[in-house]
């Protein structure tokens, strides 16, 4: 009964979304204000019905309703309650419903928090989002209905959630990632609405900027959690594999990074308008492409669920409509946009343009590497795969090219600046950073390493640009603490995000260069020394978990004779699916991780294949990525965006009193 209710709510949501996509748009065309004013109410009700539908599916999962097909094939009565909850999106149908839910929630949020937008703009934005919702709701209803029943043959128990997904990280990773993916639909809708109205101005950029930053922040968090999950759950100790699905989330992130910076120029200076619109269109198109790659199963990947081609075709058609439609609109409308203001080559605009070019080229190279196997297969040239070395070889030089200009960015002035000024301000910091880059690698205790030195140079350069900018903001009369509290939220957001980038840079390079990884054969009583840490294999024992049996090993780690940690990796066998899972044990700290994972039993003497890792600085990667996301959220709270609303209400009331 509950499942049918959810199905019905989903159908209602589709009907309402169809209305939302048509009525306000017609209203904005015919200047019919009552039709336009329907948009917020429709958007909120679509959100409400999606929420009801999602709640019904969750209810089915939590109450082990195995007559629902999705529940029967992705849950089990022994599954802990938390994982029953996350199992809702641990499968194709449910994750698509989550996608729809999040889209409708963004839509409702736009309807609620944008009451200060002019009615026609809000109507167009919501109508475009409504059209996207129609696409995804019909995808969910027609090709992957989550409420399909297994009647009358109801199975006694479910066939369990994939053990890889039974993990706390997976409870929040997909929702956050989707928040980011779908969040770009807001920027997309604003861009399309602006193209429809033919008005691309600084006000447009100011409206869409907080939404874009928030979406980018969520996407950063989602990617960060995915990387962290892969690190401790897959049992390989890797944190980024350039897997097609990782790339699928990374491409919108790269395009989104370019968009965030280009929006800044459009808002502050009214430049790069058509370029910004193009980026907004591509960021969301890349999100859709990512969905297609993940959901259609065309690529070999750890994320692909078993899937059927009909679904892939549906998304492909949808993708073609969205990309083709928005680009045609762009081609028709954009020639009318003119940039009357110029800028010099030595200015903040030029630096941000460079940022955009680098990020765009990075997006394209990742896109090319990801689609290359598909392209070759379609041409009948054989089944290729593009490995991580390709992406590293292309991506790392691009990012290294970015950093010198990234340090200059905060110091630079809009419109016109001089190289001489930059030189006089940054020569001393540059000298200090260079000497630090030579000295600091020795502190790691692994000897000098050129790559680590270069990474420190890059990170130091970015940070010294920020510090110099802060120093320049200080005038003689203000005390330091007042200076700090007076800076706007968007300034702190920028600082946090750039510091996060610096942390990620150092972490990625230091981890790659200094990690020690060893796969060894160990029996209880054996010892291995790795990077100065002695791992002692004490014993193995049998453990029983809620829905699995495990072989748990116990390792003591000693350094210089004193005990540091006890690590207990596990090898689990889950009852329902009888699949094996490696549970790695990690001793985490700010400067190094010690990582033990069990392979398989080898030989007859109780020996195991054991994977030992020593990973310095690996935490900084996730801390840095979190700082980037936090920075993005920070900018959303900038007073500037609220001030607009206050000013607008003031002018409106002034108008009203004048009449």
């Amino acid at each position, binding site marked *: 009964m509950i499942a049918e209710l959810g199905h019905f709510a989903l159908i209602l949501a589709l009907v309402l979304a169809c209305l939302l996509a048509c009525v306000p748009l017609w209203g904005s065309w015919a200047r019919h204000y009552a039709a336009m004013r329907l948009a917020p109410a429709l958007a909120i009700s679509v959100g409400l019905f999606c929420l009801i539908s999602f709640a019904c599916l969750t209810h089915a999962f939590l109450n082990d309703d195995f007559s629902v097909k999705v529940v029967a094939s992705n849950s089990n009565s022994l599954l802990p309650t938390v994982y029953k909850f996350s199992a809702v999106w641990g499968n194709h149908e449910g994750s698509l419903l989550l996608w729809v839910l999040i889209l409708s929630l963004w839509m409702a949020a736009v309807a609620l928090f944008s009451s200060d937008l002019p009615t026609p703009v809000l109507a167009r934005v919501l109508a475009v989002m409504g059209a996207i919702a129609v696409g995804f709701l019909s995808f969910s209803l027609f090709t992957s209905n989550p409420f399909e029943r297994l009647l009358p043959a109801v199975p006694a128990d479910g066939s369990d959630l994939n053990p890889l997904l039974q993990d706390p990280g997976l409870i929040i990773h997909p929702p956050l990632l989707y928040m980011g993916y779908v969040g770009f639909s807001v920027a997309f809708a604003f861009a399309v609405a602006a193209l429809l109205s033919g008005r691309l101005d600084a006000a447009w950029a100011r409206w869409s900027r907080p939404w874009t930053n928030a979406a980018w922040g969520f996407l950063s968090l989602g990617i960060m959690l995915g990387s962290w999950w892969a690190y401790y759950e897959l049992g390989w100790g890797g944190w980024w594999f350039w897997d097609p699905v990782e790339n699928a989330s990374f491409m919108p992130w790269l395009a989104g990074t370019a968009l965030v910076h280009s929006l800044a120029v459009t808002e502050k200076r009214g430049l790069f308008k058509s370029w910004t619109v193009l980026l907004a269109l591509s960021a969301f198109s890349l999100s859709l492409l990512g969905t297609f790659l993940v959901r259609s199963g065309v690529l070999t990947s750890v994320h692909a669920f078993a899937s059927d081609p009909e679904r892939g075709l549906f998304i492909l058609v949808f993708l073609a409509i969205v990309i083709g439609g928005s680009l045609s609109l762009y081609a028709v409308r954009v020639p009318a946009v003119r940039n009357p203001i110029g800028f010099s080559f030595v200015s903040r605009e030029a630096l941000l343009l460079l940022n955009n070019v680098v990020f765009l080229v990075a997006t394209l*190279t990742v896109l090319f590497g990801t689609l290359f196997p598909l392209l070759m297969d379609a041409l009948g040239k054989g*089944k290729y795969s*593009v490995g991580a070395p390709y992406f590293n*070889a292309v991506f790392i030089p691009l990012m290294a090219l970015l950093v010198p200009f990234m340090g200059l960015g905060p110091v630079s002035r809009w419109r016109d600046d001089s190289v001489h000024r930059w030189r006089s301000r940054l020569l001393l910091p540059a000298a200090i950073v260079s000497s630090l880059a030579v000295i600091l690698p020795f502190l790691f205790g692994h000897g000098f390493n050129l790559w680590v030195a270069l990474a420190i140079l890059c990170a130091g350069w970015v940070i010294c640009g920020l510090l110099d900018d802060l120093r320049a903001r200080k005038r003689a009369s203000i005390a330091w603490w007042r200076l700090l509290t007076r800076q706007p939220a968007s300034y702190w957001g920028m600082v946090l995000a750039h510091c996060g980038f610096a942390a990620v840079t150092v972490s990625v390079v230091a981890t790659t260069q200094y990690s020690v990884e060893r796969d060894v054969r160990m029996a209880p009583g054996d010892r291995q020394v790795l990077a100065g840490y002695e791992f002692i294999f004490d014993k193995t024992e049998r453990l029983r978990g809620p829905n699995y049996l495990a072989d748990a090993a116990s390792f003591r780690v000693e350094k210089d004779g004193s005990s540091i940690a006890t690590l207990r990796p596990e090898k689990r066998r889950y009852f329902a699916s009888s699949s*094996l899972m490696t549970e790695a044990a990690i001793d985490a700290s700010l400067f190094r991780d010690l990582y033990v994972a069990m392979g398989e039993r080898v*030989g007859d003497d109780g020996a195991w294949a054991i994977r030992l890792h020593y990973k310095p600085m690996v935490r900084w990667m996730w801390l840095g990525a979190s700082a980037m996301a936090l920075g993005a959220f920070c900018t959303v709270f900038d007073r500037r965006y609220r001030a607009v609303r206050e000013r607008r209400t003031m002018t409106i009331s002034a108008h009203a009193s004048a009449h």
Partner: protein
Amino acid sequence: MHPVRRQRLWVVVSIVLFSSAAVGLVVYALRQNINLFYPPADVVAGKAPLNTPIRVGGMVVEGSLVRSNESLEVRFEVTDFVESVTVVYEGILPDLFAEGEGVVASGRLRDSQSTGSGLALIEAGSGVSLPTVALIADEVLAKHDENYMPPEVAEALNKNATAAIDPL
């Protein structure tokens, strides 16, 4: 020339230079880092190159898994039900690796007679003779859930299944 035009020209020229550098980088990186998939039948027929990174995939032959007693070296046969290829790997196999299941191994093909190395670790006592050609794998990927099969493997197996039914 009008200053705005000149500026636009510079922007365009620098973008062109930059992107051609990027394209060069891509082509260079791609040439070294792509690898082609070969079903075992092609490997046995000598269509796959030696000492070049390739991938080989298919089903793990039941009972073909041999482990070394001293190290983590393993050896197994991968088949597409037409021919089979020996894969040698040193390291930890993925959790879902099992005999009779689909697998993709990436590595380089070695001719044991010409190089004479790399394959020496397999115990002589096991009674298995060394094959002439074997894949020295540096990565073994297994399927990751109950129903999923890597598309290349599925296609290679399907092709042979239909070929077996209808020889023409």
